[in-house]
């Protein structure tokens, strides 16, 4: 690659010749403001429509200002990023965007996190000179996501996420000019589209146009109801990100403080989804071994590879796109949904708490879980196994609302029995973690030998599709891993074509796995944050005295006392599920 020298704001810089002015400036510490531009570095995610023109800079000798995000550097270029001409143009661009934007910052769910708001502050907009008609559009509320496109600035980041990264294709820019919006086909509601509720569009939307359905109020009401026993479970990924909401460095583990905060919020029992993750491994791992041994014995009815099923975004995706492969994924429920019936049917019964008096709340890095816990098959006589699912962001809000000084909380421990977990459960949060956890258990159960080194380094990393062959006592086991639904699609197409070499495949809908989930604190395009969270999760695992799910004493106890054995009748009833064909176009009413 050829290197070129240029000058930006009077400073010399040398970069490869296909670098944009934006990136070149960044290398010397100059941050040109952007709105539509979005990138998750090293994760193959970039949005560069060059549409908003907030990033304009002056290139000496050129007549027009150039958008820095989509203009490449050239030899001896001289760039000014904050000349008076640039500042005026940039402000005008922003004022025009704001002229068709509702000034609802006081009540907007995104306030304080909104990139448009930040931009208005940064550029010092103090009045809105352009007054004119504002476009209005109906609000669309789905089980997990609210679309309020009056706040849309047409950056099209969501479209990039949904189409290019996730290959779901639920959203597209439609209509033109003033009437343009991002919407599902035929402007149907999101609920009628093939949306998986992965929430990746929400996590990149710069404004309040896409937000999660907020269930905090329901939780507050439950906590205030003296007739209810309110139980909470927290997903593995939450503890590695929640601290960010309280100014802690990304990658700070706040497990103990999180437990303390939940207790102060008034939850009667603070339990851990990690416990249910260990349970998932018992069921999913046993299913893997069962299918594998039958397959090796030549049983033709057995389907391999087995696919993990703990990610509800991914479950929605294959129900919509691969209904012909519905017998390939494991039937094991996600940890969130395993936890529900164990809390209500086992723990609650043991304590003599009637089902109707127990409320189960989950704290999740995920928006798909909001939809998942409302699915009919996860209800008993209309009562959901998990009543409400809150995102990591919503929990942070609740803590602030209750005047809890998070950072000065002591570290506290989860309650027993549903709070005990192993390191294997912790790594569910990272891409590759579920299959690593499953392999720790499957290896020992299959070979009867003790695993000397529990870390499977070959399964870790952030590459979009990974594969590794593990040695199960001479038997080679081929593992595939994909995160992001577009990558999952590639592996699934191989399975469909009968070309897949894998025995088992792990799939996570979100880039990075749940640590990059749609309900996590906003990363604003900084992939370093996601990497720090992943590292924190591996630290959490390493710090656990027990690191294999089948060695969790409370799991052993649960099988002894209540469930019987993995894949047994009770497990089948409480911990496994079935899938539905959702491929028929749902957007045209019958």
């Amino acid at each position: 690659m050829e290197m070129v020298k240029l000058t930006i704001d009077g400073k010399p810089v040398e970069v490869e010749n296909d670098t944009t002015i934006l990136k070149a400036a960044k290398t010397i510490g100059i941050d040109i403001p952007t709105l539509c531009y979005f990138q998750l570095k090293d994760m193959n995610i970039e949005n560069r429509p060059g549409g908003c023109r907030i990033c304009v800079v002056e290139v000496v000798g050129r007549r027009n200002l150039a958008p820095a995000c989509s203009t490449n550097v050239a030899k001896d270029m001289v760039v000014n990023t904050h000349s008076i001409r640039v500042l005026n143009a940039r402000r005008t661009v922003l004022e025009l965007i704001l002229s068709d934007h509702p000034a609802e910052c006081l009540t907007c769910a995104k306030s304080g996190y909104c990139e448009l708001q930040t931009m208005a502050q940064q550029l010092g907009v103090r009045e809105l000179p352009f007054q004119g008609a504002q476009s209005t559009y109906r609000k669309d509320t789905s089980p997990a996501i609210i679309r309020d496109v009056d706040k849309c600035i047409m950056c099209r980041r969501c479209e990039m996420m949904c189409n290019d990264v996730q290959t779901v294709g639920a959203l597209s820019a439609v209509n033109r000019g003033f009437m343009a919006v991002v919407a599902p086909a035929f402007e149907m509601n999101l609920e009628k589209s093939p949306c998986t509720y992965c929430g990746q569009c929400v996590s990149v939307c710069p404004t309040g146009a896409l937000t999660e359905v907020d269930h905090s109020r329901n939780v507050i009401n439950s906590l205030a109801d003296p007739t209810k026993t309110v139980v909470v479970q927290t997903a593995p990924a939450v503890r590695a990100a929640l601290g960010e909401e309280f100014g802690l460095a990304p990658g700070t583990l706040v497990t103990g403080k999180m437990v303390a905060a939940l207790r102060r919020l008034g939850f009667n029992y603070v339990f851990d989804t990690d416990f249910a993750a260990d349970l998932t491994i018992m069921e999913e791992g046993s299913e893997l071994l069962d299918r594998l041994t039958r397959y090796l014995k030549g049983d033709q009815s057995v389907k391999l590879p087995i696919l993990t099923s703990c990610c509800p975004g991914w479950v929605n995706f294959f129900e919509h796109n691969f209904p012909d492969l519905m017998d390939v994924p494991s039937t094991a429920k996600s940890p969130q949904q395993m936890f529900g019936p164990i809390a209500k049917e086992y723990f609650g019964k043991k304590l003599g708490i009637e089902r109707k008096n127990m409320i189960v709340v989950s704290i999740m890095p995920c928006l798909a879980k909001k939809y998942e816990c409302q699915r009919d098959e996860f209800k008993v006589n209309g009562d959901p196994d998990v009543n409400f699912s809150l995102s990591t962001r919503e929990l942070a809000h609740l803590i602030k609302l209750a005047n809890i000084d998070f950072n000065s909380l002591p570290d506290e421990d989860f309650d027993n029995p549903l709070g005990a977990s192993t390191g294997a459960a912790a790594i569910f949060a990272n891409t590759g973690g579920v299959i690593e956890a499953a392999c720790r258990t499957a290896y020992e159960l299959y070979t009867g030998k003790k695993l000397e080194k529990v870390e499977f380094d070959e399964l870790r990393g952030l590459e979009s599709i990974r594969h590794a062959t593990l040695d199960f006592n001479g038997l080679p086991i081929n593992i595939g891993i994909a995160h992001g639904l577009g990558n999952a699609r590639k592996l699934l197409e191989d399975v469909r074509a009968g070309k897949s070499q894998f025995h088992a495949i792990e799939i996570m809908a979100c880039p990075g796995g749940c640590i990059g989930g749609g309900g996590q604190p906003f990363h604003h395009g900084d992939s370093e944050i996601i990497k720090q969270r992943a590292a924190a999760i591996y630290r959490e695992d390493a710090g656990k005295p027990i690191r294999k799910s089948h060695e969790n004493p409370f799991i052993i106890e649960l099988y002894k006392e209540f469930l019987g054995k993995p894949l047994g009748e009770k497990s089948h009833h409480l911990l496994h599920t079935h899938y539905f064909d959702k491929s028929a176009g749902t957007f045209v009413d019958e």
Partner: protein
Amino acid sequence: MAKIKLSERKLQELKEVCKSFNNDKGELINVLHKAQSIFGYLPAELQEVIAKELNVSVAHVYGVVTFYSFFTMTPKGQHPISICLGTACYVRGAEKVLEEFRRVLKIQVGETTADGKFSLSCLRCVGACGLAPVVLVGEKVYGRVSPDGVKDIVAEYNN
């Protein structure tokens, strides 16, 4: 939106068209043009088929259909009425004529009357500026149309 049944014969024709474009998603606009000339319009069900054939999302197809004004999702009336809004016609009061058509037919631009008889659309200069303002009903050209003449034009086709 009620489901409509697309003619099998026309669908076959459409699939041939897609094939002639190698089912290439880059040819979406061309495929939509052909589809519209086969079916007369681009109903939702048709867009679904095209999306499947070209392996793109239905949302994307819909996005393209709504972006270009020459694509339409409503079937044209038996007598499609087009009003030229080119500069010459505009200057000579085409907008008032359009206004009158909307009032008389009780439909907006892009819509079709409930009895399926008339639909309303706008055009850019049709190259008959000398006759401005110009109105087309099907293939027939009406020149120097005034708002007062609108009722008579509609009446011509109404019995």
